[in-house]
């Protein structure tokens, strides 16, 4: 009985911190939203946290009129292509790591693991040199290829950990049925690792969608501009039009927010992927 009583004493300290932190999280987000709905003229006169007296979508109109959809499209292409390739090559690599009994494969896995500890930023100069030499500078490939490369280590790690849990008997029985490696991969490994694939996919899509350094260094023109970079350049162009800049911020988050609402669980496990468990 005494156990029960002790259990329910409220954690006052944690509770207080929890509510204060909520305010700290919500106020800036609320501010972004209300400001993006405020007419530019009222920005200077109204209380920044008040609901806009003359709410308008003008700011959104201005952003859309400034090629926002092209940048959005670029981000969609870069994110989709990168994520699909990351998943395909990481899954096949993990399959080899788990199924092969060669000594060399273990070595290979260690090479991938090395990549997890490397800060991406630190290799940007040679990556820039390489991209220029390959004639890919200022193309979407310039963002896609390095993004894939740097996503491979963590993706292989997560998928490998997951594939190891698949009972070896399942693989062996596929083999006894005469299935080749590709068919085993497609018919067995792929369906069984679906949760891990979702996690890796969501995690990497978010990383690529929000990525800033590769686009900044490896692209230049408006034709190849992706969303995070466009926010930065909007800030330059619209410097005095804060509602428009913040409307661009809202539009850039919308797809992720939609994904969060639909697949919150995957997104959460995706973000803590490989570290949380």
């Amino acid at each position, binding site marked *: 009985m005494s156990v029960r009583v002790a259990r329910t004493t409220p954690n006052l*300290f944690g509770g207080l*911190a929890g509510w204060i*932190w909520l305010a700290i999280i919500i106020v800036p987000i609320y501010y972004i939203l209300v400001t993006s709905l405020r007419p530019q003229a009222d920005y200077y006169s109204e209380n920044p946290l008040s609901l806009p007296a003359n709410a308008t979508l003008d700011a959104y109109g201005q952003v859309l009129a400034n090629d926002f959809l092209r940048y959005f499209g670029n981000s969609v292409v870069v994110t989709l292509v990168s994520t699909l390739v990351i998943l395909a090559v990481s899954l096949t690599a993990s399959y080899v790591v788990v*199924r092969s009994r060669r000594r060399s*494969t273990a070595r290979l896995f260690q090479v991938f693991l090395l990549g997890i500890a490397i800060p991406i930023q630190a*290799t940007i100069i040679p990556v820039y040199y390489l991209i220029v030499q390959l004639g890919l500078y200022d193309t979407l490939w310039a963002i896609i290829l390095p993004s894939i*490369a740097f996503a*491979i280590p963590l993706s292989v790690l997560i998928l490998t950990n997951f594939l190891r849990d698949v009972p070896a008997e399942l693989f062996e029985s596929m083999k006894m049925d005469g299935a080749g490696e590709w068919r085993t991969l497609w018919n067995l490994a792929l369906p069984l690792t679906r949760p891990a694939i979702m996690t890796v996919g969501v995690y990497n899509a978010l990383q690529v*969608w929000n990525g800033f350094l590769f686009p900044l260094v490896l692209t230049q023109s408006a034709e190849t501009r992706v969303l995070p970079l466009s926010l930065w350049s909007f800030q330059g162009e619209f410097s005095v039009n804060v509602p428009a800049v913040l409307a661009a911020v809202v539009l850039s988050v919308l797809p992720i927010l939609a994904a969060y609402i639909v697949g919150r669980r995957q997104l959460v496990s995706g973000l803590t992927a490989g570290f949380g468990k």
Partner: protein
Amino acid sequence: MSAATGSAALTQTRQGRRAPGNRADGPSVWMAGPALVLFGVFAVVPLIGVAVLSFMSWDGLGDPVWAGAENWGRTLTDPVTQNAMRLTVVLSVATWLFQTPLSLLLGVFMAGRQRYRAVLSVLYFLPLLFSAAAVAIAYRALLDPNFGLGTALGISWLSQDWIGSPDLALWVVLFVISWSFVPFHSLLYQGGVRQIPKSMYEAALLDGAGRVQQFFYITLPQLKYTIVTSSTLMIVGSLTYFDLIFVLTGGGPGNATRILPLDMYLTGFRSYDMGKASVIAVILVVVGLAVSIGLNRFSGASKMDSQMEGV
């Protein structure tokens, strides 16, 4: 019965396959080819390349020319880079000191099964959806001395020129980094707390341990691996805070927030001194690796280690 015979048969097959002269078992390494090529060309080669470039002179346009150790001497004695190193250390220590207790507290709070806590956890997660560029832009507007938060709440203390003052800018960076990353670390701690066996708390209660004692004698020791993982990510992460600071302050005012990754970018892509920037990059790689390995050694075989060594 049949399962047992099945596995016996399987062992036989395996042994049979291992017979000398036979093609080695398992899929061909070529299946890993695409991942290897992509990772090799765009990650491993650049990693070697950055070390080579640190001994070369290059303006980013022509061809790199051999320069010997000149870049190294020049970089290590440069007051701007020395200042960047100092700022990087200050920022990583400060972000760790600020974020760790906060994330721990929130993680323990979020791990509770009450429904309102689940709702709060959903909201806590929101900062993780924003790109660093978006966060920085929003905070630039929010911290405006004339039209920002200070005006909204009528608190004059909040109406300082946060981003324009060399004394305040670094602390603004610290706060905005925490706003963005505490949600992630509290998620790690939430997961860690939920894995602690309930029976441990029940036993502690029977022994008459209060909530605070439970925290220090059960929760904290049980979260050892989570703390190491989170701290490693935080400290290595502070070597990579580039985009957020780049958009928020650009390294300024003056050089007040020019930490190493920013120093590298500005040296390389604004001053076109790629040799010097490569030296800074090598320092970043070495420090990053040293911190990861050091923290994991220091804590014994950590979870990250065992995941990595479970090859």
